[in-house]
């Protein structure tokens, strides 16, 4: 990474050329970018349930229709019907329309002089109010019309427009054409409108386009303000905008290449890139300007920026990238599209940043002046010191405060409710939503579900016994008040039977023979929406207005339970339909949310754990990031914000972004600790150095997320609100939890303090670490400490308690027996790589000798506690170490014996 940054700072024109070439390549594809909102894409794709629903649709046809809703005091007045008939004919001739069902087409099943008459209700237009009343009265008895195309008690009727199956239609074309047609009816009917899911989607598309126009400038404005307050340099303000601009262009081009449309979710990516993408730019620019302030020339300042920030920027990009990508774990199409597009956008932004910033700064960076030196003054340093001191003093209180806040947040989580309904995303003020409310109030609603009942045996549903099973389920739904319109093949037969028996109302045939008789007068095509060709499978179509996912879940559960307990054992029933898929998508959304968060946290733990060679450092790093998630969920619970297509993304994305600050904080602390070797000083310096970039980028992010609150889609508004909340809470957590958490750890390891030469020549060649890999040596000495001794300094003294083992790194140390008059009889001299002090330590007795530095020496000290901990946690490494120690001790013993022997021989010779 560092090399890349340096490369582009050395060859700015190459960088700018790459940016230009990529921009041309992606811009050429832009015209292919689609704006599309599809109901399918809000659902779980390619799963068993979806396949079953597709099969059901192929077998029985689509559930959904577009309603032309009409209200008037005299619905069937001749002049009104004349106009309506003309308009419906016009609608039927539209290229995307398969057919229109209305009182002009729905058969009025009756007998005339004993012969069946299936002419439509409005075959002849009524001439008198009496005739009008009669037709309405009869139509209201028909279960296929009542609540579906005619209100049972109000002057409201509807026509159902059924679109051509198997074709992808343009919602805008449909909506415009139907609106134009219905407009001609407004002088006869008020209100008169067309409403269906194409209208819902059209409005969403329209709003997406509008919001891109008004939210985008707001996001740019928020970024500009943040950049101005932070950087106050023209070129520095322009650079994040440039990198955001290029990355948006590339991302949109990528979407066009990949065939991913701009939809309600992916449409927020450009704004997110403006907001989130700028943080790396700010960190790089800050470092560059810092270098300039330190008196470095442009090139050197860029080198320093690359050296200091290269790895950090890469790591923070990786975590944010993973945060966005983790949203793509969802099985819901729009969410994985969002995950893919936003993470790719972020990658593009990262590329734009690492190319543009060094390239442009190397060309134009010198023009800039320092504008924020005051912030890094002595007063700020004092404030950082006081703040850190305050934190340490109130450590316990702060921990309790956070625990309390966590507990309160956890209490709010069970209150969270779920809502995954496209209609809800329109908001209460939407005209489309109001129209749907009218349909829900006066007719059976636009939502549908199907109950497919099958036996696998042909002619099953020509038997009364099984038709009664269908009726039983319908009666249960009616009794529960879940739907005002359930229709099935049993209803059609009842209607026909009622007509033949000349009864006032539909009635179920009494016998199988009666059903067969009725079937003579029925073409399978007439009932193909309700029963298959061999009568082994039937569908109950349920129209409803349940818009809450929780209510739907309850309904589906109860219905399934009823079916399981009451359906004839020879039959199997499966509940499917748009509502069911929406409900399953809700579950997928929730599980996706938890999977995203869990995966992200694991990745954070791993990255930070690897970086600091300690898993618990990684675990501690998640604390300031998991805490905002708890707060967010608690906030959702208490503030009645539902889990929906927008809010489900907030946590993962926000953690991905917020962890950047934690990483910046920890890596800075790491660097400072290496330099100062004092935890307190390092922490103060970290707070002092990171306060400005972390606070300002966080505030810029908060401002950016708050831009989404100006959207008109509630899920996007809530996404913005929660995103801002998480970033803000994470900011506090980063400056409160992170310092307290990492101050208890030794982030800068002894390994880091040892030079490469020392590691290679002394440690790895020491007898103590024989046959151990460098990482094992590192693990073992991580908790050790380094001590420096001047010539003549005592490392330990006779009679001292033996608690430590020493490994000489540099210099020379001799061990001697203290003699009279301050003299010392030298026993042994140690060189770098030798171990000493081990005998008394393992014997558990006070020191028998003195150890003194013969020349300035550096010693690695491993205390008893460290050794014992290693013994417990790293038994394999410890076993090797002890074997080596035994070998070392044996060699020393042999040397001593040899020495004794030599001394004895000399004495005897004398």
């Amino acid at each position, binding site marked *: 990474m560092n090399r890349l940054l340096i490369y582009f700072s050395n060859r700015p024109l190459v960088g700018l050329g790459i940016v230009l070439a990529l921009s041309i390549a992606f811009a050429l594809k832009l015209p292919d970018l689609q704006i599309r909102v599809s109901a399918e894409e809000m659902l779980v794709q390619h799963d068993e349930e979806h396949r079953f629903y597709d099969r059901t649709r192929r077998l029985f046809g689509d559930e959904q229709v577009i309603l032309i809703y009409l209200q008037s005091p005299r619905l069937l007045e001749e002049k009104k019907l004349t106009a309506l008939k003309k308009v419906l004919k016009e609608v039927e001739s539209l290229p995307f329309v398969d057919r229109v069902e209305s009182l002009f087409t729905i058969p009025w099943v009756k*007998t005339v*002089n*004993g*012969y*069946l*008459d*299936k002419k439509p209700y409005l075959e002849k237009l009524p001439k008198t109010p009496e005739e009008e009343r009669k037709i309405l009265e009869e139509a209201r008895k028909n279960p296929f019309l009542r609540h579906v195309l005619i209100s049972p008690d109000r002057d409201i009727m509807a026509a159902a427009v059924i679109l051509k199956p198997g074709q992808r239609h343009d919602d805008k074309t449909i909506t415009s054409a139907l609106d134009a047609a219905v407009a001609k009816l407004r002088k006869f009917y008020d209100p008169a409108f067309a409403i269906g899911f194409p209208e819902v989607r059209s409005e969403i598309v329209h709003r997406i386009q509008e919001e891109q126009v008004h939210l985008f400038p707001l996001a740019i404005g928020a970024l500009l303000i943040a950049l101005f307050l932070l950087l106050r340099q023209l070129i520095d303000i322009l650079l994040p905008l440039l990198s955001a601009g290029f990355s948006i262009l590339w991302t949109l081009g990528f979407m066009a290449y990949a065939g991913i449309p701009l939809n309600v979710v992916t449409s927020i990516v450009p704004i997110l890139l403006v907001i989130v993408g700028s943080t790396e730019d700010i960190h790089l620019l800050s470092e560059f300007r810092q270098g300039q302030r330190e008196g470095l020339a442009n090139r050197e300042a860029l080198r320093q920026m690359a050296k200091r920030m290269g790895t950090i920027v890469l790591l923070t990009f990786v975590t944010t990238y993973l945060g966005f990508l983790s949203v793509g774990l969802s099985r819901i199409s729009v969410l994985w599209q969002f995950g893919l597009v936003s993470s790719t956008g972020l990658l593009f932004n990262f590329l734009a940043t690492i190319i543009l910033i060094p390239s442009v700064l190397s060309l134009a960076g010198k023009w800039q002046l320092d504008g924020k030196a005051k912030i890094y003054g002595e007063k700020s340093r004092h404030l950082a010191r006081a703040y850190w001191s305050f934190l340490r003093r109130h450590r316990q209180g702060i921990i309790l405060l956070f625990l309390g806040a966590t507990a309160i947040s956890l209490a709010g989580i069970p209150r969270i409710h779920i809502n995954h309904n496209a209609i809800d995303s329109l908001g209460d003020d939407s005209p489309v939503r109001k129209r749907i409310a009218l349909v829900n109030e006066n007719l059976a609603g636009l939502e549908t579900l199907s109950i497919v009942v099958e036996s696998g045996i*042909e*002619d099953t549903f*020509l038997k009364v016994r099984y038709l009664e099973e269908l009726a039983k389920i319908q009666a249960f739904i009616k009794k529960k008040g879940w739907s005002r319109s359930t229709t099935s093949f049993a209803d059609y037969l009842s209607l026909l*039977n009622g007509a*033949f*028996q*000349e*009864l006032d109302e539909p*009635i179920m*045939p*009494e*016998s199988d*023979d*009666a059903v*067969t*008789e*009725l*079937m*003579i*007068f*029925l*073409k399978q095509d007439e009932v193909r929406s309700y029963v298959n060709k*061999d*009568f082994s499978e039937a569908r109950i179509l349920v129209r409803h207005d349940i818009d809450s996912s929780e209510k739907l879940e309850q309904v589906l559960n109860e219905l399934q339970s009823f079916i399981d307990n009451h359906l004839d054992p020879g039959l199997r029933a499966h509940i499917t339909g748009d509502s069911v898929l929406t409900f399953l998508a809700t579950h997928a959304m929730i599980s996706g949310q938890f999977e995203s968060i869990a995966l992200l946290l694991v990745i954070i733990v791993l990255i930070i754990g690897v970086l600091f060679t300690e898993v618990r450092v990684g675990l501690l790093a998640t604390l300031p990031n998991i805490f905002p998630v708890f707060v967010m969920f608690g906030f959702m619970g208490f503030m009645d914000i539902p889990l929906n297509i927008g809010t489900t993304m907030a946590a993962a994305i926000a953690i991905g972004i917020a962890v950047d600050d934690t990483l910046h904080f920890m890596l800075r602390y790491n660097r400072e600790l290496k330099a100062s070797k004092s935890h307190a000083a390092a922490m103060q310096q970290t707070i002092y150095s990171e306060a400005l970039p972390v606070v300002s980028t966080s505030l810029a992010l908060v401002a950016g997320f708050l831009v989404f609150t100006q959207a008109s889609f509630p899920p996007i508004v809530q996404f913005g609100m929660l995103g801002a909340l998480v970033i803000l809470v994470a900011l506090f957590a980063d400056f409160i939890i992170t310092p307290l958490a990492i101050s208890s750890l030794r982030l800068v390891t002894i390994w880091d303090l040892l030079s490469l030469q020392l590691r290679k020549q002394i440690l790895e060649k020491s007898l103590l670490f024989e046959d151990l890999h460098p990482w094992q040596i590192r693990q073992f000495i991580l908790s050790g400490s380094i001590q420096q001794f001047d010539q003549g300094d005592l490392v330990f003294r006779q009679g001292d308690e033996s608690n430590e083992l020493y490994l000489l790194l540099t210099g020379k140390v001799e061990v001697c027996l203290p003699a009279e008059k301050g003299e010392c009889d030298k026993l042994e001299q140690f060189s770098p790589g030798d171990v000493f002090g081990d005998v008394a330590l393992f014997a558990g007795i006070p020191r028998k000798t003195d150890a003194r530095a013969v020349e300035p020496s550096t010693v690695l000290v491993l205390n008893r506690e460290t050794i014992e901990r290693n013994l417990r946690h790293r038994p394999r490494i410890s076993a090797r170490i002890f074997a080596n120690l035994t070998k070392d001790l044996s060699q020393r013993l042999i040397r001593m014996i040899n020495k004794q022997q030599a001394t004895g021989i000399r004495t005897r010779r004398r």
Partner: protein
Amino acid sequence: MRPFLLAMLMASLAWTVEAAAGEPENTPWFTAPYTGEKVKSYEITLPLSRYEEETFVIPRDCKKLNSRLLEGAGHWGNRVQRRLWIKADDDCRYLNYLNKNPRKAEKDFVSDYDFFNARLADLPLRPGCDLYLLLRDPTACPDPLPGMPDFSMLMMHQEHPGIPTEIPGADPQQCRFRNGVFRGHIFFVDDSLQCEEDHRAPGYRILSVDYADVNGDGYLDAVLRMSLIGTHGRPELLVLPLTRFAPEGKFSLPQGADYPRFGPTDEGWLP
């Protein structure tokens, strides 16, 4: 060009005339399958085997249909298709029934009677059983022939606890079909036939009345096709042949005019 157009016009005209002439005047009305409409002829496609189907125009192809039935084709298809075989065959049999005696009837005491508004007292309420016997002692009456209406379902017997002793102002003459429909109950009070009309009670609808000398006795017979309506009703057609030998009086069943039921037959078919 002009002669060609003229030839086409003439051919069309000739075809229309021929088509009109091909539809005999005495062809009864049928109920078309699928639509249930009242038609003189209909088209029906029926399975001949697992993979074969054939379209018949009824009544034109009645002979062909009978041949196919003799070949065993009536067993193919699903439950509904098998019922459609029966329906087509029934319609053909009805036509054959009307036309089996080619001789023109010499005496006609039926065609002037308005059967759609027939007085109940004029009908043999259970075909083959005297009305008075039927009402007083139904067990003494033979069962109705298959495919014929069983009017005893309308009866309220003397021992029935809910039977009214008298309906004030009731005129026995008013116990009648109205526009082909009677729904209600009939009973006797002091040797007098009485009825209670009830539009929600089961009853009968007369669908059509055709005339033919079905038993070849020289007296024209009326053949009523009826269906049971109300609860327990079904769209199955019931056939009731009636005759009488004087301008006034009750109708009776023509002797030897049993109505043939479903199944292949080798009886003579109309060309």
